[in-house]
């Protein structure tokens, strides 16, 4: 859950006390943030006349209580991980991508359209095709604010948020008109998509499907791209210091577009996984786009920050965060409060986790200063 780079480098230097403080800071601060959020959540439950103890029991057993629960947690964390890997790429390149929500929707729309247009393709072709279509849809939705930032100096935070709103309304339009299931009941959803497009289940008798392998695969690819490839070095250089990178002859503008397009592609795959890994096997827009994405576009950001903006560390971070969200649904059902509680709790977790991030580095710096002082003493 911590910055893996930090840990691997740290283990090689510094005295043991210093090392322990640093790794403890890495672990305890985010966990403390989540606990603080749970305390606030307990107060809310108490205010709603619900038992916090009963609620949190339901949360933990619902998230991690057995094979089925763990599988559901893994399913819940897939979109977080996919978006999170994209966030690692964007943030490392110095671009703040708040547009995961819209990029998920764009990926879902394009992949669903492909599945509706080519229902008879064999499964071995159609499944990869819809995933690629999802990536392309998300990439387009990311590249637009990327190009606006690179070539027109438009603040990407604002443009990606606006792209979220546009995507949500476009989804609502499509599901009321072009893509709606033919029939008497006008629910905002497509027909059940071709069986050849469904993501295959993994053996084990749970609901777990190959989406989890795809998500982890994307995380590995993201790691290789960022830390083991020349384009990754360029992206990170641009993120670190765009002026120096430009001076060194790097294509800064193109890098920004690429970073947001790649980031969007990851979120777009999440959109495809949400459609073709769902049990209903449809694109459902009833209840708004947020009901479809379950705020994964925002939560992926938190998972990535939790993972120190490292794609591989984002894997366990997403799993824990996904467990919290999955368990939140069980909590809400166990104590009989409206589902909106999960969204509110989600917000509180974001508030505390984002607030704790700098504390982590501050404690690390403090420990480093301490370690430095000690080694200076040794020299004397």
């Amino acid at each position, binding site marked *: 859950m911590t910055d893996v780079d930090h840990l691997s480098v740290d283990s090689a230097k510094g005295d043991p006390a210093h090392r322990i403080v640093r790794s403890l800071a890495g672990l305890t601060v985010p966990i403390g943030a989540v606990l603080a959020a749970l305390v606030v959540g307990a107060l809310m439950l108490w205010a709603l006349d619900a038992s916090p103890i009963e609620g949190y029991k339901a949360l933990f057993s619902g998230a991690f209580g057995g094979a089925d629960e763990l599988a559901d947690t893994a399913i819940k964390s897939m979109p977080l991980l996919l978006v999170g890997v994209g966030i690692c790429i964007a943030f490392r390149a110095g671009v*703040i991508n708040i547009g995961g929500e819209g990029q998920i929707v764009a990926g879902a729309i394009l992949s669903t359209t492909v599945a509706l247009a080519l229902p008879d393709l064999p499964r071995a072709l159609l499944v990869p095709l819809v995933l690629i279509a999802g990536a392309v849809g998300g990439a387009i939705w990311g590249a637009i604010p990327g190009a*606006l930032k690179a070539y027109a100096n438009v603040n990407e935070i604002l443009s990606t948020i606006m792209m979220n709103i546009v995507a949500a*309304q*476009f989804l609502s339009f499509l599901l009321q008109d072009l893509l709606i299931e033919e029939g008497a009941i006008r629910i905002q959803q497509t027909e059940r998509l071709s069986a050849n497009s469904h993501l295959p289940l993994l053996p084990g008798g749970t609901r777990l499907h190959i989406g989890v392998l795809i998500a982890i695969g994307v995380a590995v690819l993201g790691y290789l791209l960022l830390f083991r490839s020349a384009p990754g070095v360029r992206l990170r250089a641009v993120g670190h210091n765009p002026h120096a990178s430009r001076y060194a002859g790097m294509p800064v503008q193109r890098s920004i577009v690429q970073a947001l397009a790649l980031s969007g592609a990851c979120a777009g795959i999440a959109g495809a996984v949400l459609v073709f890994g769902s049990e209903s096997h449809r694109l459902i827009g009833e209840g708004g786009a947020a009901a479809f994405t379950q705020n994964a576009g925002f939560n992926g950001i938190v998972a990535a920050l939790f993972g120190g903006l490292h794609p591989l560390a984002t894997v366990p971070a997403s799993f824990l965060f996904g467990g919290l969200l999955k368990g939140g649904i069980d909590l809400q059902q166990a104590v009989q409060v409206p589902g909106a509680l999960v*969204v509110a709790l989600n917000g509180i977790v974001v*508030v505390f986790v984002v607030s704790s991030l700098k504390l982590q580095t501050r404690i690390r710096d403090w420990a480093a200063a301490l370690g430095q002082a000690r080694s200076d003493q040794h020299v004397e």
Partner: protein
Amino acid sequence: MWSDFFTTSVIVATLASAVRFATPFLLAALGEAVGQRSGVLNLGVEGVMLCGAFTAYYVRLNPSGWGWAGGMATAILAALAVGLCMGLLYAWMTLVMHAEQGISGIGIFLFGLGATDLLFQKQVGVPLPISGLRPIRIPLLGDIPHVGDILFNHNVLVYLAYVLVPVITLMVNRTTFGLNIRAVGETPEAADTLGVNVNLIRLGAILIGNALAALAGAALVMNTNIFQQNLTAGQGFIAVALVYFGAWRPGGVMAGALLFGLVSSTVLQLKTLGIVSGAASALTAMAPALLTIVVLVIVSRRIGQPSALTRPFDRNA
């Protein structure tokens, strides 16, 4: 069909509601402008607006028996109080914990979205309308044909929002507090060496911003007279964009708010007249967001944002 739109009465009504619809945008964006001038970006406006809107709605729905003025004043004051509390939370996040400002607002937004929906379902259940603020026709000015209807026949929050434009302009440009706000937003280190308490000034700016955002929510619910899940539907985010549109000046922000008010009222009028209907109305609902992007492209060429925007101040750094 379109001929239904181009009649004097419809156009006057559309322009009058444009002035009214611009109010939540204006209040929220004025507050955000003050915050950003001090170097703090707050993306949580949307969440604060929702909380302010729900608070005002809920208090108004259960008037404490203090009569018309009492119930209304309590509703607005309660919304302001909620806004100030959320401002304290945001100040803790950004000033004390140095949280990343581009993201921390998302937490406030999700919390506001979930909490208001939760409380609405739990405490209200059935969406009941409230009696909103009554329009007050200003003597003499309100009697001017058409213009009076468009500009001088609104509720007190609408007037307040427009009066705040010169007030905030004066505050930012002509008072010590305003000068300090600009100083800590441009070069906090220099302000600090001159003895300005950077975080205290920023706290003040954040509180003003959040109070106005909550007031914007109250103004919104006084327009719709009903609360629903995600009532703001992106208006708080657009308000943040309007600050860029207005180049951090209250007058510019007002122009942007009026533009968005006009778009919103026109879209609503077209729906009411049946000129757009069904699925097409989802397309027209994209208009404000698309317009925001276009506007950002146009204004971004001449942008000069406060130099210390989103940069936390740490004296030891």
